[in-house]
C-alpha cells in the first residue's frame, strides 16, 4: 500500500482538503437510505402497488446506490476520472444483466 501513498504525502491538500463532508450530512444520508429501504419494503408489502412495483423498486434502489456512491464514496467531490472509470464498469454490468434478462426472460415469450 505504501507504494501508492506518496502523493498524499507531498500534496495533502489536494488529496483531502476539498471533499470533506460534515458528520451531519453523513448521518442525514444514512437516515435517507434507511427510509428508502423501508419505502421499498412497504411497496413490496402493499398489494395496491403491484402493477408498478418493479419500476418503483428499481428507481428506489438506484437512488440508494447513487447516494452511497456519490456521498459515502465521495465520488461527487472527487476527480471526474474516477466517475468515468467506475461508471463504465457499472454501465457494462447493467448492459450485460439486462441483455441476459432479455435473452432469457423476455424473448422466449415471442416464440
Amino acid at each position: 500500500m505504501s507504494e501508492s501513498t506518496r502523493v498524499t504525502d507531498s500534496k495533502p491538500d489536494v488529496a483531502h482538503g476539498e471533499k470533506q463532508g460534515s458528520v451531519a450530512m453523513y448521518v442525514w444520508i444514512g437516515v435517507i437510505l434507511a427510509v428508502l429501504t423501508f419505502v421499498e419494503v412497504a411497496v413490496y408489502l402493499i398489494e395496491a402497488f403491484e402493477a408498478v412495483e418493479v419500476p418503483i423498486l428499481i428507481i428506489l434502489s438506484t437512488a440508494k446506490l447513487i447516494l452511497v456512491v456519490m456521498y459515502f464514496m465521495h465520488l461527487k467531490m472527487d476527480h471526474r476520472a474516477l466517475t468515468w472509470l467506475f461508471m463504465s464498469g457499472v454501465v457494462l454490468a447493467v448492459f450485460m444483466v439486462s441483455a441476459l434478462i432479455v435473452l432469457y426472460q423476455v424473448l422466449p415469450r415471442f416464440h
Partner: protein
Amino acid sequence: MSTATIDQAHAGHSTHDEPTGLWSWITTVDHKRIAIMYFITATFFFFVGGVEALIIRMQLWNPEQSLISPELYNQLFTMHGTTMVFLVAMPMAVAFFNYVVPLQIGARDVAFPRLNALSYWIFLFGGIYINLGWFIGQAPHASWVGYSTLTSSAYSPGLNTDFWFIGLSIIGIASIAGGVNFITTIVNMRAPGMKMMRMPLFTWMTFVTSFLLITAIPVIAVALIFLGFDRTFGSVFFEPAMGGDPVLWQHLFWIFGHPEVYILILPAFGVISDVIPTFSRKPLFGYPIVVYAGILIGFIGWGVWSHHMFTVGLGPIADSFFVAATMIIAIPTGVKIFNWIATMWGGSVQFTTAMLFSVGLLAVFTVGGLSGIMHASAPVNLQQHDSYFVVAHFHYVIVGGAMMGLWAGLYYWFPKVTGKFLDETLGKWHFWTTMVGFNLTFFPMHFSGLFGMPRRIYTYSAELNVDLYNQLSTVGAFIFGISALIMAWNIYRSARRGAPAGPNPWNAATLEWSIPSPPHHYNFPEIPVVRSREPLWNAGEREEVLAVTMPDPAEEPVMPVPSYWPILLAFAITLAWALVMTGIWWVIVLGIVPVFFCVLMWAFEPAFPEGH
C-alpha cells in the same frame, strides 16, 4: 571487433548499477525485466503450442488416419487453443505493454511495480499448472471454449477439466491485476504535458485493452467458478436434468470471449500504429479518429458476443440484433485500415522487417476481417460455424493480425531492449517464411471448411475429398514452424552479437527513443516535458526535451525496492486454487491461509527504500 564497439557505446549506462543473478530476476519489480520474462515465457509457450499444432496437422495429413489416439488429439487441440490464446498472444502483448508503455509516457515504472511482478508470476504458475495434466496423461480435453455439458463430471470424469478451469482462473487473476495496473499507470503516471490525446497509439491501445481485461475477465472468472462448483460441490448451474442451462456457459464464455478477441488484436493495432508512421516518416493519419475507432471497437465488442452462438437457437430477434451489432464493428476496423494506408501515402516507406510485418498484417488481417463479415451474417454462419472455414478465419485474425503485429513490435523495439538490432536478413527470412507458411496453412482451410469439414475432428472421411487441402495445410504448418525457428535463432544470435543500435535507431518520434538503449533501470534521468504527439521529431523546433543528451542524474532517482513477496504470493494463490481439486472443503479453506499471510506481509513491506 563489434563487441568492443558495443562495450564502448554502452559503457556507463547498461547495467553497472543494477544487481545481476537469478535472485535479482526473481525479486525484480522493474517493468523492463518483467517484460523480458513475459516475452521469454510467452515465446516458450509459443513453441509448446506450435508443436501441438504440428502433431494435429500430421494427424490430419490423410483421411481416416490414426497416428495418435482421438483422446490425445482432443487434448492437443484443446491445449493448442488454450495455450495460444492465454499463454502466448495475451502475455506477449503484456510483455510489450510492460516494456513500452512506461517509456512512452515518460514514467519511471508502472503504478504498482510489485503487483506487476505478481501478475507475471501468477501467469507463469498458472501456465505451468494448466500444462501439468500432460504429465499424467490427463491434459484438458474439452476444447478451449469448454462447452458445458462436456465439462461436467459425467462427461469429463478425470482431472482434465480440473486442470483447465483451475489454471484459467489463476491466469485470470494475473490479467485483472495487469489491467488495473496499466489503467492506473496510463491515467496517473504520464509525464508533464503528455495529454491523453498526445499519447502514442500503442499506449492508447494498451489503455483500451486493459479496460477490456478488467471488465471481461471477471465474467469468465465467474463462469469458471460455476463450473468449479458444479464439478466439485455438486451445484447444478449447467445441469439440464435439474433445469440448468448449458447454453448459459456459452453466453458467459463469449461475453468474455469476444472482448478477448479485441484484447488480442488491439495491442497489435497499437504496435503498427507506431511502426507505420516511423517507417513512413509521417505522423499517423487521422490520429484522433484512429484512437476513437479503437475505443469504439472495444465498446461495441461488448455487445456482439452471441455472433459466436448463431447456431444455438436464440431466435430471430436476438440473431438480428447481434448481426447488426457485429457488422457495425466492421466500420471502425475499416477506418483504421484506411488510415494506416493513408499514413503511408505520400510518405517515404522503408521496408524494414518491422514494417514488413506491419504491412503484412494489413494484407492478411483484411482477409480475416472479411471472412468475419461472412460469419456475421447469421444464415451464412449456419453453414460456416464450427467448420474449418472458421478455423481459417480466426487464424487469419489472430495470427495474421495479433501475432504479426507483435512480431512487428519485436523487430521495432528489440534495439531498445537490448541495444542491438535484430538481424535484418534473418528478419526478412522470418517474414517471408511466415507469410508463405501462414497462408499455405490457413488459406486452404477456407476450402476444407466450405466443403464440409467440421473443426475439432480427429479425422475425416475420405469421401469429403478434402485431403488435398489438408495436406497443403500440413506442409504450410511446417514452413510456419521453420519461420518460428528462424525467429528464435535471430533473437538468440542478435541478443549476443547483433549490430549496436543507438538510442533512436529508427529515427522514431516517441519518448522511448529519447533515452539510451537499453535504458537505465530508472528509465529517464529526468522526467521529460512533452509538447506534441511526436516529441522527438519536433525536438529543437519546439523545445522538446531529449533525455539522451541529459547527463546522468547526480543522485539516482528513488526506485521501488525488489521484493520476494510477489513470487511467494503468486505461489500461494496457485496452491490455494490447486487445492480446490481435492474437493475437501477444509483443505480448500486451509489453502487460503498462506494467501492471507502473504498479502499481509506484502502490505506491510515498504515498496520504496526506507526514508522515502
